[in-house]
Structure formats: structure tokens, C-alpha cells
């Protein structure tokens, strides 16, 4: 009997565990998931919580409930991985050994990495929406906020769901308009990127949408520190941006045990081969989802497509064969733009987001355009996440990115 340990029972870990359990005979392989708790959050829901669209109980389910009943879930905090002796140590002293290890512990926002962020104004005039607690605290804040300077700031890339800060800007505009107080709110979008997004066509489309909604963009802003007394963002080149309410997207980092185990880069992300997600350092370790360093979006859709390719490769790898399938960095993201409309982008390592229809040539979704149908797609996705993706069922969309329906210049 050989065993697979999966660290993390979130989006990537749950899908991987369920799909591997179907693909491997229980008589030969055991599969165990390790996580600190039983709360599996539907993270895409965090963008709606601050505006009161989703209630907190709509975004949380039991991790246990979404894992195949033949997969043990061990509750524990990981202290260290010992790659040479192929075992992991938990903080309470328990040890687990593995034949194959899958790291899927994602990334977390680290406000402690920016001087001043946690000093005095945290959860008062400085908020975030990337955690369950943060999105709820921000919902409370927005209920009674009288208006003023709202500043949305990305500290550094890469971040989870790189379109979420844009969605937050668009939804804020709509939220304050609906409350009849848009004229009392000045929204500024402060980013380390040279524009609204990295890829040219999408940057243009999102930039136009920000402008249309009266949101100012401050590009190339590398945050050095927050001055909580003066309520100011200060960049490394000494630009200052005052705020009354700061919605920060703090630096995203992988789990600390990854660093302690010597498995991470400067952001505690596990360096892997971008096509197969196998660790560059150990052939008994893979890292899936946000936890790895592939140059793709840190997003559930990427994890989903990546896991599909991974399963085929993993079966080859444990049979001692060469891995022949290649993940292409496929990402597919809805962008809520407010007033019950949304945009959609579909892209990979090599092809930037283009305009057109999705999936295939018929749609019903439209790429890089604000439509009602995209918004319905986004809302329906929560059901799809829990009922199709997590149990490991197939989606009726291509795993590798397809050019069908896309408009080439």
C-alpha cells in the first residue's frame, strides 16, 4: 500500500483528492488530506459579501462533506515537510509519511508585510476582503460609511483572483450609486501595474470601464508603507495618496511551513515545472493551485483546468513513465461590473484575453464585454463550484484554452 498526502482541503486540494480517489484503486493507494479546520470557503463569494449580496453562511461549507468518504481528513497545522525522509510533521507532534506529496495550501493575504498596515487603523479605516473575517468586517463598515476618499490598493503581484480588485472598484461604484451617495465618494484604484491589468487588450477594456465609472487609476505605484495617522499610502518613490477608507489587497504569500521546509521562493511559493506542476527540487512532490509559482492567474478556474491535466500526468509519473500532458495556463474569469452585468475573460500562458464568444462560437457568454448573461453565469457559478467542480465531475467546457469563438486581430 502506498500513500498520497494532500496538504490543504480547499479548491485545488479537494478536486485533486476526489479525482485521484476515482482514478486509483483503494487496495493500492491511500489518499489523505490534511487541513487545519473544517471550513471550506467559497472564496469567489467574498467579493459579494462586503456589499450585502451574499450572507456569510452562503459562502462556507464543510471540507469533510465535500471529500469522498474514503478519503480521511486529518485536522492539524503543518509544521514542516521533510522531503528527504518523505514525512510531514504537525505542530502537535504527530507525523505522517508519504510516497507522493501534493502541496495545495494556497496563498494568504499578509498585511503584516507592509509597515503601518496593522498599526492602529486595521479593520477601522483599513480593510480587506480576501478573508472570511475581512469581507464581513468590510460589509459592516460600508453599511454606515458616510463617504469620502475610497482607495483600493494592490500591494504587489501576484495575488489571488487578479480581477477581484477591479470588481471591487466596479461594485463600489454601483453600491454607492444605489445608495444615492455616489457624489460623496471619490474612488481611486492604486496599482503596481502600468495600467488596469497586465495584458494589453484586457487592460484597455478594464481601463475604459474604470473611466466610464469615474474611477481614477494611479498606475506604477509600489507601496512602501501605510501612514495610519496621516491616513496615507506612501510609495517607494515617495508619492503620497490620502484615504478615508483604504481597501487593501495585501501581499499574498504561500504558507509559512513551505518556507520552513526550504521548499519555497521569496513569496513561499513552490517552484514547479509550469506544464506538469512537479516540484523542481523533488520528484515526490507536486504543488497545485495558488501554492505553486506558475506564471498564470491564482484562481479557482486555473486550479480546475490544472488538476484535470495533473491527474493524467500523475498516473504516468507513479507508473514510472514520462509525463506527456502539458498544462497551458488556462484561466477563465468573470468580472462583475455592477448593475447586474459582468465581463468574462478566457486566456492562457500564450494567448492574452481576446473578445468574442464563450464557450465555442455560440456563447451564451461574451468575452471582454459587459453583459447581463455574464452576470447570470457568475451567479450560477457558486452552484457549479459545490456541485460539479468540488466532487470532481466534468464541466462542458474545454480544459485547454480553445481559440473557437475568439476574435483574432
Amino acid at each position: 500500500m502506498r500513500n498520497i498526502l494532500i496538504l490543504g482541503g480547499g479548491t485545488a486540494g479537494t478536486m485533486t483528492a476526489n479525482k485521484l480517489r476515482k482514478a486509483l484503486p483503494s487496495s493500492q493507494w491511500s489518499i489523505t488530506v490534511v487541513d487545519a479546520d473544517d471550513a471550506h470557503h467559497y472564496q469567489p463569494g467574498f467579493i459579494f459579501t462586503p456589499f450585502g449580496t451574499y450572507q456569510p453562511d452562503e459562502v462556507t461549507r464543510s471540507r469533510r462533506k465535500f471529500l469522498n468518504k474514503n478519503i480521511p481528513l486529518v485536522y492539524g497545522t503543518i509544521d514542516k515537510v521533510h522531503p528527504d525522509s518523505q514525512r510531514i510533521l504537525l505542530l502537535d507532534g504527530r507525523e505522517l509519511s508519504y510516497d507522493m506529496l501534493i502541496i495545495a495550501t494556497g496563498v494568504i493575504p499578509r498585511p503584516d508585510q507592509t509597515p503601518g498596515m496593522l498599526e492602529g487603523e486595521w479593520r477601522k479605516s483599513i480593510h480587506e476582503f480576501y478573508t472570511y473575517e475581512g469581507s464581513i468586517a468590510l460589509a459592516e463598515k460600508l453599511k454606515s460609511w458616510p463617504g469620502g476618499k475610497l482607495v483600493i490598493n494592490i500591494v504587489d503581484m501576484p495575488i489571488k483572483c487578479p480581477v477581484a480588485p477591479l470588481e471591487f472598484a466596479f461594485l463600489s461604484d454601483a453600491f454607492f450609486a444605489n445608495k444615492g451617495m455616489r457624489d460623496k465618494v471619490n474612488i481611486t484604484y492604486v496599482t503596481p501595474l502600468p495600467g488596469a491589468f497586465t495584458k494589453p487588450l484586457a487592460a484597455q477594456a478594464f481601463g475604459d470601464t474604470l473611466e466610464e465609472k469615474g474611477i481614477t487609476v494611479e498606475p506604477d505605484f509600489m507601496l512602501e508603507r501605510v501612514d495610519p495617522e496621516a491616513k496615507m499610502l506612501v510609495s517607494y518613490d515617495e508619492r503620497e495618496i490620502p484615504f478615508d477608507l483604504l481597501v487593501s489587497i495585501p501581499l499574498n504569500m504561500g504558507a509559512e511551513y513551505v518556507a520552513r521546509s526550504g521548499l519555497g521562493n521569496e513569496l513561499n511559493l513552490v517552484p514547479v515545472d509550469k506544464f506538469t506542476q512537479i516540484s523542481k527540487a523533488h520528484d515526490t512532490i507536486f504543488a497545485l493551485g495558488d501554492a505553486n509559482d506558475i506564471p498564470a492567474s491564482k484562481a479557482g478556474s486555473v486550479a480546475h483546468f490544472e488538476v484535470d491535466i495533473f491527474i493524467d500526468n500523475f498516473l504516468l509519473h507513479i507508473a514510472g513513465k514520462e509525463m506527456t500532458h502539458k498544462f497551458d495556463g488556462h484561466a477563465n474569469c468573470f468580472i462583475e461590473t455592477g448593475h447586474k452585468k459582468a465581463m468574462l475573460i478566457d486566456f492562457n500562458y500564450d494567448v492574452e484575453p481576446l473578445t468574442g464568444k464563450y464557450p465555442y462560437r455560440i456563447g451564451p457568454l461574451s468575452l471582454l464585454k459587459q453583459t447581463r448573461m455574464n452576470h447570470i453565469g457568475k451567479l450560477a457559478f457558486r452552484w457549479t463550484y459545490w456541485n460539479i467542480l468540488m466532487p470532481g465531475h466534468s464541466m462542458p467546457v474545454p480544459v485547454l484554452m480553445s481559440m473557437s469563438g475568439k476574435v483574432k486581430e
Partner: protein
Amino acid sequence: MPTTTISGREVSVDDEGFMTEYDQWDETLAAALAAAIEIEMTDEHWRVIHFLRDDFKVQGETPTIRRITNTGGFDTKQMFVLFPKKPAKKMAYIAGLPKPHGCV
């Protein structure tokens, strides 16, 4: 792939003028590239540029500012003094490396 002439030599570049052949680079070219974006090279500039070159050789990709400061031991604020406004992009340009891809 387009080419351009820098300091009397033909070199391969991408659409934005970033050099695409690691081995075509030398310090003479780098100084000319720096001058083109109004940067006068000092010893301090060279130390950073050589770190980028060495790191690229091992890692296969242009280091981010965070990597340059964490691994190379350079001060982030000083990077903005040496290579004003867009240090990551300017350093890569002078070092003859691909433009750092702001990850999506």
C-alpha cells in the same frame, strides 16, 4: 524577431526593444541601453544589473523587485533612486533580459 543597431552592433530585440538573446549582451551595450533611457551607470547600478544577469542564468526568468531585494540584498527604495519610476522594467531593459511579466 526584429533586430536593431546598438553601439554599431546588430542585436535581436522584441517589439518593445528588450534584448532577446542573453549572449549578445555586454557592458558596452548595457551602457548604451541605459543612456537611451537617461540613466548614467555607476558601480551601484552595475552591481544590480549583474545580479539580474546571474539570477536569470540560474532561474531562467527575470527576477522581480522582491526577489532582487530579498535574495540579492538590495534596498527597494534605492532601486527607485537608481532606476526611477519603473525600476523592474528599466533594470531588465539594461540587463538585456525579457521584460518581467507582471503575473496575471
